[in-house]
C-alpha cells in the first residue's frame, strides 16, 4: 500500500462529534460521591488591612461543613514559590489573604457546604472588618513606593533589568533622524474563555493522595507549585483534565484556587470539593493580561528611514501578586527586535505590583506588548518621516535570505518571509484600489486609514530564560512526552502530555501516527486531556506558548517511531524474514505488517497478542519489546548567558501579518473596519482548518482587545468591568469579514517543518492602531494606546486631552 500523507490534510476534527453535539466532558460535568461545594468570600477593597474575620455565623448555618481562612492555612502551608529573586522572593503569596488584601476580589475566606446555594448563603454571613489603605493603580506611581503592597518585600518593584545590545552611542551619533516618543501604553485586557475556572479536589486521608479534576492548562507547572505549597510528595498529586472550554493561558494560574480546594477537602475529611468560578469572579480575580507603559523612547534612523537603534524604558504592571511573573520580564525579549533588522537596542525593563487583579499569561503573553510597542515605533517614525507605512516596513524587515536570523540577543528566528506576507496581504486587501478610495474619502473630509501590523508568535520556549530574571532558577530547555502503544487487541493508543483547550490535539496527533504506521487516522485512538498518572508528562507538559505542533507532535512522532521499530522487529521474527522485508499496510482484516518476499502477514492484534498475553512465544532476545513506547522530545536549547542576557529563547517563530482599512465616523468617532486581511505563516500546516480556525479566533480576540475590551478600575480600585455587559467581549456580530491567506516557510527545527501557533492575537492591535494613525495623522494625533473606541478618539480629536502629537512625539533632523 502506498503511504498516505495525513499530515497537511484538512481532516475533520476527531473531537467534533463530541464537542459539537454537546457531549464534551468538562470539569463541571463531573460529579463525585459526597461532593461538597466551595465558595470564596472576596474583598470589596483594593487595598486594606484585614482587621477581623468572623466565620462563626457562616459555620453555624445548616449544611455548612467547614470554612477556611488565611490565618488557618498559614501554618499548614508554605507560601507559593516566587520565581523572581529578591525583592520578589520576599513576597509571601498565600491563596487566602492573611493580614492584608491587595486587590478587589482577593479571597479572604472559603466556605464549604453541601450545596453551592448554601455556600452562597453562608458567604453572606461572614463578617470582615477592613481598614482601607491607599490603593496603587498605576505601575509608574507604584514605583514611587508611596503605598507599599507587600511590606515583606519593602518595595512595589518586582524586577528590573537592562537589556542592552549593540552600540547605541554610535547609532544615535550617526543617525540622520532621531524620533522621541514620550509615553505609550498597552492596556489591560484578558481572555474570556466560555468555561470559567473549575476545580474538583479530593484529599484522601487514608494515604494523603490528592486528586484533581480541573481545567488548569499547565498542570505540570501547577503541581510543582502545589507540592511545595502543600508540602506533599509530587507523586501524591494526580491532576486530570478532560475537555477544556478555552484557556488562552489564563488558566495556568488557577493553582491558588486548587490549593484552597485541596485544603478544604482535607478539612472536610476527604470529601471531594468542587469550586466553579462565576463569570464575575473570573473577570475580577482570575488573571488579566499584562499592562505596560513605554517611556522615553528614542529611535535612531538613517537617511532612508531604516531604524538603527531603539532605546526605551518599559514598566510592566503585574497586578497584586507576581505568580507566573516575573517571567514576563524576559519573555518579551524572545522578540526583541520584532520583525525588524535593528541591531542596537536598549530596553530598561521594570515590573511593579499594583492593587489590581494578578496577571497571568494571556494569549501573546508579554511578546504582544513589546511587538505592539515596536509596531507603534515603526509606524510613528514612518509618519514623522513621511514614508508610506508599507514601504517603511519593507525597508526595515529582516530579509528572507537572512534566515535563520540571529537577533542581537541571540534568538534564532528559524524561518520567515515578511515581504512575501506583506505582498499577499496587500493583494488580498486590494491595497492599490483602497489607496485610491482613501484619497477620495479624504478629499470628502472622511477619516479613512490603512494599516499594517506584523507580529511574531514565538513558540516552544527555552525555560532557561527564567535564569535571566533569576540566576538561581532551576529551569532550562523544554520537553514534552508522549506514549504510543498497541493495546492487547492491537488498538493503536496515543497519550501525550498536552492539555488541549480546543486546539484539536486528538486529530493532529492521530494524523502524525497515521503517517508513521501507514494507517488511517480513524484507527488511532488519542487520549483526551491530561493525566499525571498516564506517566507521559514531563515538567514542562501542558498546553501553552504555541508549541504543540512542535513539542507535542515531535513527542508523538518519536513515540510512534519507537513503536514502529518494535513492531517491525517483532513482525520480522514472526514472519521469519528480515526487517527490511517488512512493510506496513492494510489487509482484509485491517492494518497489518507484511513480508514483501512471501506475502505472509501478521495483524496488529497478532503482534499485541504475542507481547501481552502469549509471551511464551517470545524469544529472550525480543524481551525488550513492549509495544508500549514512551518518548520524550527535548528542544535543542542551551542555557542562555545570564549576564549578557543572550541566547536562543524560543525554537520557532510563526508570523502574522494583518492589514486593515478603518474609518472613523465623523459624528460618533467610532472606528469601523472597512476591510480586513489576516495572513499567517506557521510553517508547514498539519491541519489547515484547525490553523485557520485559530487564526480567526486570535483575530477576533485581538479586534475585541483593540476596540471593545478593556479592564477598567476606578480611582478606588473598584473593577468597573466585572460583567460581560460592562466588559463587552467581542461577539460574531462585531466581527468584520476576515480575508485569510497563508504562506508556509518550513521550520528547520521541527521534524515536520511546522511551527507552533495560536497566539497571533496581537496582530489586530498593531494593525488597528496603525490604521487609526494613518487616518488621523492629519489631525495632529499620535495613537499612543492600544485600546481605542469612539470615546478615546473623541477625547483626542475634539477634547485634545490625549494623543496630541505635539506633546508626545518629536523629530530631530540631523542632515
Amino acid at each position, binding site marked *: 500500500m502506498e503511504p498516505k500523507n495525513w499530515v497537511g490534510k484538512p481532516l475533520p476534527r476527531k473531537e467534533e462529534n463530541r464537542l459539537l453535539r454537546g457531549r464534551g466532558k468538562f470539569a463541571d460535568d463531573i460529579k463525585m460521591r459526597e461532593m461538597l461545594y466551595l465558595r470564596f468570600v472576596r474583598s470589596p477593597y483594593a487595598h486594606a488591612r484585614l482587621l477581623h474575620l468572623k466565620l462563626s455565623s457562616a459555620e453555624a448555618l445548616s449544611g455548612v461543613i467547614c470554612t477556611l481562612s488565611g490565618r488557618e492555612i498559614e501554618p499548614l502551608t508554605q507560601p507559593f514559590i516566587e520565581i523572581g529573586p529578591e525583592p520578589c522572593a520576599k513576597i509571601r503569596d498565600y491563596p487566602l489573604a492573611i493580614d492584608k488584601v491587595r486587590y478587589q476580589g482577593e479571597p479572604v475566606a472559603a466556605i464549604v457546604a453541601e450545596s453551592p446555594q448554601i455556600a*452562597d448563603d453562608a458567604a453572606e454571613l461572614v463578617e470582615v472588618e477592613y481598614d482601607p489603605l491607599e490603593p496603587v493603580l498605576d505601575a509608574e506611581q507604584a514605583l514611587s513606593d508611596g503605598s507599599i503592597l507587600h511590606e515583606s518585600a519593602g518595595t512595589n518593584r518586582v524586577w528590573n533589568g537592562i537589556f542592552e545590545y549593540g552600540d547605541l552611542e554610535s547609532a544615535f551619533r550617526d543617525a540622520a533622524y532621531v524620533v522621541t516618543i514620550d509615553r505609550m501604553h498597552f492596556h489591560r485586557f484578558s481572555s474570556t474563555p466560555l468555561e470559567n475556572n473549575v476545580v474538583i479536589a479530593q484529599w484522601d486521608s487514608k494515604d494523603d493522595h490528592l486528586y484533581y479534576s480541573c481545567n488548569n492548562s499547565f498542570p505540570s507547572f501547577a503541581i510543582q507549585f502545589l507540592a511545595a505549597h502543600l508540602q506533599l510528595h509530587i507523586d501524591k498529586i494526580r491532576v486530570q483534565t478532560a475537555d477544556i472550554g478555552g484557556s488562552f493561558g489564563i488558566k495556568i494560574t488557577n493553582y491558588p484556587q486548587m490549593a484552597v480546594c485541596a485544603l478544604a477537602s482535607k478539612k472536610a475529611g476527604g470529601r471531594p470539593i468542587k469550586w466553579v468560578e462565576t463569570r*464575575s469572579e473570573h473577570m475580577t480575580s482570575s488573571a488579566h493580561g499584562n499592562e505596560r507603559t513605554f517611556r522615553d523612547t528614542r529611535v535612531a534612523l538613517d537617511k532612508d528611514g531604516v531604524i538603527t537603534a531603539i532605546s526605551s524604558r518599559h514598566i510592566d504592571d503585574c497586578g497584586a501578586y507576581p505568580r507566573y511573573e516575573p517571567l514576563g520580564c524576559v519573555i518579551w525579549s524572545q522578540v526583541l527586535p520584532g520583525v525588524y533588522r535593528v541591531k542596537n537596542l536598549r530596553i530598561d525593563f521594570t515590573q511593579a505590583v499594583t492593587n489590581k487583579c494578578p496577571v497571568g499569561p494571556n494569549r501573546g503573553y508579554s511578546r504582544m506588548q513589546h511587538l505592539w510597542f515596536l509596531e507603534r515605533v515603526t509606524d510613528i517614525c514612518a509618519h514623522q518621516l513621511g514614508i508610506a507605512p508599507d514601504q517603511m516596513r519593507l525597508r526595515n524587515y529582516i530579509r528572507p535570505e537572512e534566515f535563520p536570523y540571529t537577533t542581537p540577543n541571540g534568538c534564532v528566528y528559524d524561518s520567515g518571509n515578511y515581504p512575501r506576507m506583506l505582498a499577499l496581504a496587500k493583494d488580498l486587501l486590494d491595497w492599490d484600489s483602497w489607496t485610491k478610495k482613501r484619497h477620495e474619502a479624504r478629499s470628502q473630509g472622511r477619516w479613512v486609514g490603512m494599516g499594517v501590523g506584523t507580529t511574531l508568535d514565538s513558540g516552544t520556549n527555552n525555560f532557561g530564560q527564567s535564569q535571566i530574571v533569576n540566576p538561581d532558577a532551576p529551569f532550562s530547555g523544554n520537553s514534552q512526552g508522549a506514549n504510543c502503544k498497541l493495546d492487547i487487541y492491537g488498538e493503536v493508543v496515543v497519550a501525550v502530555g498536552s492539555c488541549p483547550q480546543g486546539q484539536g490535539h486528538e486529530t493532529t496527533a492521530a494524523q502524525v501516527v497515521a503517517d508513521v504506521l501507514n494507517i488511517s487516522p480513524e484507527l488511532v485512538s488519542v487520549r483526551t486531556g491530561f493525566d499525571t498518572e498516564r506517566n507521559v508528562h514531563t515538567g514542562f507538559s501542558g498546553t501553552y506558548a504555541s508549541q504543540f505542533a512542535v513539542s507535542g507532535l515531535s513527542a508523538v512522532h518519536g513515540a510512534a517511531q519507537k513503536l514502529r521499530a518494535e513492531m517491525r522487529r517483532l513482525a520480522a521474527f514472526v514472519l521469519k524474514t528480515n526487517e527490511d522485508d517488512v512493510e506496513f499496510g492494510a489487509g482484509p482484516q485491517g492494518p497489518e505488517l507484511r513480508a514483501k518476499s512471501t506475502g505472509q502477514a501478521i495483524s496488529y492484534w497478532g503482534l499485541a497478542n504475542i507481547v501481552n498475553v502469549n509471551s511464551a512465544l517470545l524469544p529472550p532476545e525480543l524481551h525488550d519489546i513492549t509495544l508500549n513506547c514512551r518518548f520524550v522530545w527535548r528542544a535543542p536549547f542551551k542555557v542562555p548567558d545570564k549576564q549578557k542576557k543572550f541566547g536562543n529563547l524560543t525554537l520557532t517563530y510563526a508570523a502574522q501579518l494583518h492589514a486593515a482599512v478603518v474609518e472613523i465616523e465623523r459624528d*460618533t468617532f467610532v472606528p469601523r473596519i472597512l476591510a480586513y486581511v489576516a495572513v499567517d505563516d506557521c510553517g508547514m500546516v498539519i491541519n489547515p482548518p484547525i490553523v485557520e480556525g485559530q487564526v480567526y479566533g486570535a483575530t477576533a480576540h485581538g479586534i475585541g482587545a483593540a476596540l*471593545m475590551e478593556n479592564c477598567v478600575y476606578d480611582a478606588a480600585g473598584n473593577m468597573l468591568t466585572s460583567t460581560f455587559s460592562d466588559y463587552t467581549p467581542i461577539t460574531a456580530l*462585531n466581527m468584520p469579514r476576515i480575508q485569510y491567506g497563508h504562506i508556509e516557510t518550513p521550520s528547520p527545527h521541527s521534524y515536520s517543518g511546522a511551527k507552533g501557533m495560536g497566539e497571533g492575537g496581537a496582530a489586530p492591535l498593531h494593525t488597528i492602531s496603525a490604521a487609526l494613525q494613518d487616518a488621523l495623522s492629519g489631525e495632529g494625533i499620535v495613537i499612543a494606546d492600544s485600546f481605542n*473606541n*469612539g*470615546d478615546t478618539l473623541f477625547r483626542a480629536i*475634539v477634547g485634545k486631552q490625549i494623543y496630541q502629537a505635539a506633546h508626545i512625539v518629536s523629530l530631530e533632523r540631523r542632515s
Partner: protein
Amino acid sequence: MFPPAFNYHRAKSLKEAASMLAQAGQEAKLLAGGQSLIPLMKLRFASPKHLVDLNFIPRLSYIKKYKDELHFGALTRHSEIENSATAAAVPILHDCAAGIADVQIRNRGTLGGSLAEADPSGDWAVVLSTLETSLSCVGQKGERRIPLHDFITDAYTTVLAPDEVVREISVKIPPQGSGGAYLAFKRAAPVYPTASVAVQVTLEGDVCQEVAIRMGCVGLTPIRASQAEGVLRGASLGEKAIEIAAEAARSEADPQPDMRGSAEYKRMLVGVLMKRATYAAVRRARGERVDVSHLYA
C-alpha cells in the same frame, strides 16, 4: 452564584397580586419578564424575600387599538410589540422594541416591567414620554390612571404604591403629519445604551407644529430637551434649526462618566442621536417609510 431563598407567589389575578404585595410588604418584588430582576438577584444585589409572579395572570398581554389609542397589557413582551402590525402604526414603538438587547431578552422582557423598573438607561420610558402615555394601575383600593410624566419620579422610583401593579399602558396615536424616531448608541447589542434620544414631531407643511424630545441614560430619569423643543417648535425643520436644537439638547443633558463613556462623549452623542432621530422623524411625519437602527460601537 445563586440568589438567596425567597418565597414564590403565583398570582391568579391583579387583585390577588395587589393583596399579595400588601401582605408581603417592602420585602416583595413583582416578577414580570425578570430580565433585570433575576440577574440582580443572581448577583445578590437584590434579595427580595417574596416574589409575586404575574406571568400566570390571564389577559395581561395584548396590543389593541381603540379609537385613537393603543392599549398594551403590562405583560406584553418587547418581541410582541416588535412584531405587531397594530403597534407598527407608531413607528417609534417599533424602533424601541426591536432595538432592546437581544432576542432572548426581547422574548421575556415586558413593557410594564420596563416602565415600573424606571432604570435611567431603560428604553421605553424615553420613547413613551414623547407620546401621550398613561398607565392604568391596580391596587387594593381600585384602579387609577397615571400619566407617564407623573409616573417616574427618580432613578428606579415611581409613584406606584407598595400594593399597586401596572395593568395597562395606553398610548395616544399621534395625528396625521406626526412622526417619531428613537435612536440609541450602544457598545454591544445586549447592553444598555450609552445614550439615547426619542423625537416626535408634528408638521404642518414644513413647519413644526409640535415636538417632543426626550433623552435617555444622561440623567436620573428621561430628560426633556425643552430648549431644543423650543428651537424647533414653530420653525421650519431645516439643517440649521436642527443643528441649533441639537446644540441645545447637548447642553440640557446631564451625563455622568461611567464604563459606557466619558460625560463629554455622552453629551456629544446626544447631539448626534438627536439630529439623526429628528431627520428620521421628519421624514416619517411626511409619510415616508424610514427604517432606522441603533448606532453600535
